[in-house]
């Protein structure tokens, strides 16, 4: 009906999505290794407005471009270094530089049960292992599992150059280049990877990232590079804090709120205009 109604509507929708992203940043201000997100909006493509029923012009002509609102374009994750917090705990590792730990992730797939089984009061959902894939993380608060492997707190195996790292004890040392030494012997070297474009990383929860798409436009697998030696160090006894800037998020939240408010006012004005058109213009 009135184009402006929809334009303001798109803005309100986009701002509410932006508020979602800001809130997620805010509640993750204490999450180790978290990287803050920003919602990027984009205008719809301009439409050309054409002149109708104008007797002064013989040809069908264009007035000019007109825009009908904004939509969410993408979410940009900022991979800036978070602060390094010293904990002195040997199981805490932090990466200083542009690199990620690699973990072996086995998704748990729910075993399908039919309606009868599900109705049983003793029914407990069973899970089976899916296909193992690799995921990436900056969160270095690791544990040692019962068999002695270095794992994340969720139990995913941390990868070294030759696969899983068997430390056998919580008393191990990690050198700045990622070499893991336990009981006087070298038991492995942490595998650290770097991406040519960090924009291919997608957050998948549990402090992990997946890569999407896995291939580039030509169908070739994306390059995962080994980081150049001097720029990346692993620090044992430190954790990388979240890189969320609380002050900036608060300001963004205020901006979003006011943008939402002003678009609501625009919507109200259009609503009033329509109300007049519907109710008052044709009043007998």
């Amino acid at each position: 009906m009135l184009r402006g109604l929809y334009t303001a509507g798109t803005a309100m929708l986009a701002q509410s999505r932006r508020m979602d992203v800001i809130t997620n940043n805010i509640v993750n201000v204490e999450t180790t290794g978290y990287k803050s997100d920003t919602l990027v909006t984009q205008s719809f493509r301009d439409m050309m407005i054409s002149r109708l029923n104008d007797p002064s012009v013989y040809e069908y002509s264009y007035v000019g471009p007109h825009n009908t609102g904004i939509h969410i374009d993408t979410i940009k994750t900022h991979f800036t270094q978070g602060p390094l917090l010293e904990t002195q705990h040997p199981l805490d590792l932090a990466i200083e530089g542009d690199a990620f730990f690699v973990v072996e992730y086995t998704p748990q797939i729910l075993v399908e049960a039919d309606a009868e089984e599900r109705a049983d009061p003793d029914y407990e959902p069973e899970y089976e292992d899916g296909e193992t894939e690799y995921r990436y993380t900056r969160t270095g608060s690791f544990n040692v599992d019962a068999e002695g492997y270095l794992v994340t707190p969720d139990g995913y195996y941390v990868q070294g150059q030759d696969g899983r790292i068997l430390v056998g004890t919580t008393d191990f040392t990690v050198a700045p280049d990622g070499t893991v030494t336990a009981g006087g012997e070298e038991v492995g070297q942490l595998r650290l990877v770097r991406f040519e474009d960090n924009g291919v990383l997608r957050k998948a929860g549990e402090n992990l990232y997946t890569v999407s798409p896995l291939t580039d436009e030509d169908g070739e697998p994306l390059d995962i590079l080994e980081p150049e030696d001097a720029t990346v160090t692993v620090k044992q006894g430190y954790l990388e804090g979240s890189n969320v800037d609380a002050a900036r998020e608060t300001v963004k939240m205020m901006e979003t709120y006011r943008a939402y408010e002003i678009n609501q006012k625009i919507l109200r004005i259009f609503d009033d205009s329509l109300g007049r058109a519907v109710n008052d213009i044709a009043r007998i």
Partner: protein
Amino acid sequence: MIQTLYTGASGLIGQQKNIDVIANNVANVNTDGYKKTRFDFQDCLYVTMRAPHPASNGPEKNLQRGNGAIELQTARIFLGGSLTDTGRVLDFAIDGNGFFVVENPTVDESYEGDADQSILMVRNGNFHISNDEEGAFLVDPQGRYVLDTEGERIALPTSVPMERLLCSGDGLLSYVNDEGVLVEVAQMQIVDFVNPGGLADVGNGAFMQTDNSGEMTEGTGKIVQRKLEASNVDYAEEATRLIRAQRAYQLAARAVTTADQMMGIANSIRQ
């Protein structure tokens, strides 16, 4: 918008639990042998927002929206506390990794796993003598019998003044008798685990083996006598954590309030 409320609420709940953990640490700043815990967060459950237009060319865009923060783990940190001199002959401390072994007074009959639930691990070496009709035994402050390397209760000689009791670095208790001969009493057992973080906390400063703690190995720490290990809680660290938790809580509350106000704005588009 409703999702924003839940996302914000997850922050409030998480920080509350975080503060609980911090408060517990601070309450135990003077508990000998206490090991601090730490609350860690993880982000969770990313969903793909609805794509406005399919991308005609170019790479797929990131539309993953997060849904808050939840608990990753409450880790127990087994860093050593500082050793303080007490001068008391039955005060022991472990300098390094390892635990004293005591007998578990209550055993759960229904447990069917592999872990040995008959023993408990402790770090607090403030031991005493318990006299009963079978003799004088070494016990911890809760009255649990300290075990030797054979798994037996440690019996102390009643005829010898306890001041003469000596303890070597690997836990061998002995004394010099009136003839000047060194008499061995018992060997205290020091154990460690592949994953001490997997031990279950059964309260009163004791830990129990579980399926997650891995194999029991020999402790590498040295036993020192006439000292006690203080709590490993660092008050400055806990105070800093508490300030950060409070600020995070305030921020999350602000986000929830703002989301609520935005919903109010949406509701009042048309009175």
